[in-house]
């Protein structure tokens, strides 16, 4: 049986929609229901996985997400067997003229406390850590 700390999703834009429901379950099982951090964390995980769909195209069509809830932080690993990430092929948007694409990882970097990438055992592995804010009072 798949644990709530794991999610395997189809590497398609439709598959990315599974992240929201899974994150709801994860937050509930971790005692974080109503946390103000949930929406931003969904967006960041969604952007990491969307980057896999758009650029890595894993041949098995799968993305694997593992979550490790801590006391007040969430550690996430996103893995796929697709094309290695090339940082040189990924320009960050500048300050001046607005560009159309390239905002995904910029968003992740602003939401996550840490974000790292490595290539190991034929897999892309993205790791990110997020602080968990308590639920708003009232």
């Amino acid at each position, binding site marked *: 049986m798949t644990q709530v700390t794991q999610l395997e999703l189809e590497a398609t834009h439709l598959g*990315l929609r599974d992240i929201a429901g899974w994150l709801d379950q994860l937050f509930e099982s971790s005692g974080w229901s109503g946390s103000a951090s949930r929406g931003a964390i969904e967006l960041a995980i969604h952007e990491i996985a969307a980057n896999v769909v758009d650029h890595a195209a894993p041949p098995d069509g799968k993305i694997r997400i593992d979550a490790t809830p801590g006391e007040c932080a969430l550690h996430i690993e996103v893995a796929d067997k697709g094309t290695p990430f090339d940082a040189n092929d990924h320009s960050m948007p500048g300050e001046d003229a607005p560009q159309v694409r390239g905002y995904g990882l910029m968003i992740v970097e602003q939401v996550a406390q840490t974000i790292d990438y490595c290539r190991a055992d034929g897999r892309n592995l993205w790791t990110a850590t997020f602080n968990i804010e308590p639920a708003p009072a009232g």
Partner: protein
Amino acid sequence: MDILTARHERSLMTVTLDGRLDALEAAPLRAILTDAIIDGQIDIIIDLSNVEFVDSAGLAALVKAMKDARRAGGDVRLVSPKAADAVRVFELTKFDKVFTMGLDVETLLNRR
């Protein structure tokens, strides 16, 4: 996501969206906006008030339309989403300062 469009006098068009504006929905929206601008509808108001979530692909569709419209002498203006999960992407990328955004369609129409 439903995409409702209405063409008004001269170059004005309004577009009303709901649900999720994500990578799945960005392509059809981009096609609609591109065709409209080619047809001369270069003043576009997009009502995002009932959109629940926007990702970078959805944002990219809006930015492309804004750039195309401005190049043609018009603009793309946005009714701000009510949901925090939809507003977030604009704030994180600072596009809330690039787009003209208002609370409702009437407010944006009166700013013309």
